[in-house]
């Protein structure tokens, strides 16, 4: 079991990416009770936005100088798409039965994925994404890549910033109010439409950061990375208690670590030899979700539904 620290670290990095994406699901859900199914694709377009910026920068530029610009580029693309989707696709359906926006979201997700597939030059196969130099770093018995460090750092910074924003700012308070009771929030003078837009924008921003981190970590991006990542992040959001931002991050970490450990150790369990490894990791992640929902239906950090009154 001396690989355990390494596997935990693997899961931690993977999980913080899930968590970053899950924030978008959970914030939007918390405020409008909408599963923004297209969020995975917003993550993907963020990565491609950053890549487009990088491709157009002079090749002599160092990756460290380019990185902030890439983040900005990815964020602009993701946020614009997220906000545009809210304004033009979801808002007209706000009072429709909940299936309507969900179908819209599925449509949007397909359209975004196919748009990149068809019109981003040569995006049909994996597109090369720049990687951070340096590494691997050895911390105890654990190897860490520089991309992983960026990912972890970004996740920590984003989480703290978001926590401070939601807790202490006036808008953050209005956001919580809208999530808890939108009608009454309006009575306080909160422009709930604006709050919803902000929630989508923050989700988009975090997805873009996750997109850039993804590119840096794996060195390539592809038009279809959004679906898998989105599914995992959505699972993470539910696992952590949908609507709760800390829950989203926790759910992401739990999921990432569970997958890493399932790949590595399930096969060592007597009688389970055939059910281990990468091929079954997703199945175990799913089983974990079911078990958590059975034991704690509101998710790890979720509030009891009754509290929402």
């Amino acid at each position, binding site marked *: 079991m001396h*690989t355990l620290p390494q596997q935990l670290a693997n899961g931690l990095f*993977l999980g913080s990416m899930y968590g970053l994406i899950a924030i978008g699901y959970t914030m939007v859900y918390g405020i409008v009770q909408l599963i923004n199914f297209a969020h995975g694709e917003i993550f993907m377009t963020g990565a491609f936005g950053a890549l487009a910026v990088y491709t157009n920068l002079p090749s002599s530029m160092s990756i460290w100088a380019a990185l902030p610009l890439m983040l900005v580029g990815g964020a602009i693309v993701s946020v614009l798409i997220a906000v545009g989707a809210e304004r033009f696709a979801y808002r007209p359906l706000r009072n429709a039965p909940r299936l309507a926006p969900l179908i819209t979201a599925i449509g949007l997700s397909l359209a975004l994925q196919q748009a990149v597939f068809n019109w981003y030059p040569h995006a049909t196969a994996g597109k090369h994404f720049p990687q951070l130099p340096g590494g691997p770093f050895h911390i105890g018995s654990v*190897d860490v890549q520089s991309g992983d460090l960026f990912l972890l750092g970004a996740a920590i910074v984003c989480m703290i910033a978001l926590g401070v924003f939601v807790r202490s700012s006036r808008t953050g308070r209005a956001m919580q109010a809208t999530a808890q009771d939108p009608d009454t929030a309006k009575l306080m003078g909160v422009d709930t439409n604006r709050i919803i837009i902000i929630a989508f924008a923050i989700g988009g921003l975090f997805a873009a950061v996750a997109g850039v981190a*993804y590119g840096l970590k*794996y*060195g390539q991006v*592809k038009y279809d990375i959004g679906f*898998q990542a989105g599914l995992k992040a959505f699972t993470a959001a539910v696992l952590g208690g949908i609507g709760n931002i800390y829950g989203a991050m926790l759910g992401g970490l739990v999921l990432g670590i569970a997958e890493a450990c399932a790949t590595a150790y399930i096969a060592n369990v007597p009688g389970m030899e055939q059910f281990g*490894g*990468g091929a079954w990791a997703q199945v175990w992640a799913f089983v974990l979700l079911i078990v958590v929902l059975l034991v704690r239906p509101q998710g790890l950090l979720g509030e009891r539904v009754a509290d929402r009154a």
Partner: protein
Amino acid sequence: MRHRSLLILTSVLATGALTLTACGSRSDDSKKGGDNSSGGSKTTVVIGVDAPLTGANSATGLGIQYGVQIAVDDANAKNLVPGVTFKVKALDDKAQPATGQTNATALVQESDVIAAVGPLNSGVAQSMQQVFESAKMVEISPSNTNPALTQGKDWATGTKTRPFTTYFRTATTDANQGNFAADYAVNTLKKKSAFVVDDKQTYGAGLAGIFQGKFKSLGGKIAGTDHVNTGDTDFSALVTKIKNSHADMVYYGGQYDESELVTKQLKAAGVHIPLMGGDGMYSDTYIKTAGQAAEGDLATSVGVPVETLPAAKTFIDTYKSKGYPGDYGTYGGYSYDAATAIIKAVKTVMDANGGKLPSDARAKLVDAVQKTDFDGIAGHVSFDQYGDTTNKQLTVYQVKGGKWTAVKTGVYNG
């Protein structure tokens, strides 16, 4: 008043109906006229193509379509079969069995279509075989590698039975490649312990299974096995496992989409052992994406290196100069050979029938294709009693200086 308007209605409807029938006849007229004007007394024979032309696998699928197209163009230009103009009808199966079956039905329905090339995926082939068999129509796949398609379900135990007489393939089965790779790994590279990974697809799982068996029988040790899912990108858990297994090589059964990430993450974690794979990995994209990490990695591929075959070079030049989309590298050559086999068979059938296409040309073509024997651009083309290619030429390539370089060419026997 009442009568008059009824009369109007009736006449209007009658006119409508008449015009409908009239136009029906016209479109037939124009079709015939078109054929006459373009071909004179020539007969048009259509070769169907079924491959994924859109979606994720489209690059490879388009390579099949245009491989056939070039073969047909060459045949028409050289007037290979006098009195016959060949045409291609390409249908998109989107890598879906049901769609492939619909396409097969469509091809069978069209009387001009004499035989078909395709599909790309073994899973799709399973749904098409029966349709072609019922219609006695030849189907040659340039890429299916699942041995069961030609040798029946018990091929592994040596009990081979051919399920469909109309199905042939110019690609070799996984069996040859996997064995050849294992032989090279043990005997040339002197590897002792391999970690085997596959992507749980027909091709990848088959290849990995055969490699594993052969590697063990040659005295190697399997340090571990694992399976991944297509579309996965994070292999860090797998890499840690490989690192911990102290294997001295990794064998990967699958496509470059995943293996390029595996090798990259492997080397980044400081595990500098070569990764070996099959022809699904033998692509420039692999090197481009994996970059420095690909150095020293190996891939087997069927046939001899392209540089040694002038015909293949011409093919690639034509493909590039015409600006066809898609990836000719993987199966373009086999597709060319498959189409050529059909064209040559058409000639045989016609020669036997006094220079004319017989009414049961499709059925006669099955025998003619079975007796195919010529040198194609990817090696010698002929089929054994199961419909498999007899071309067992294989080459091992290695990434050296950012390019695939042939390191061993040979024939696997046994």
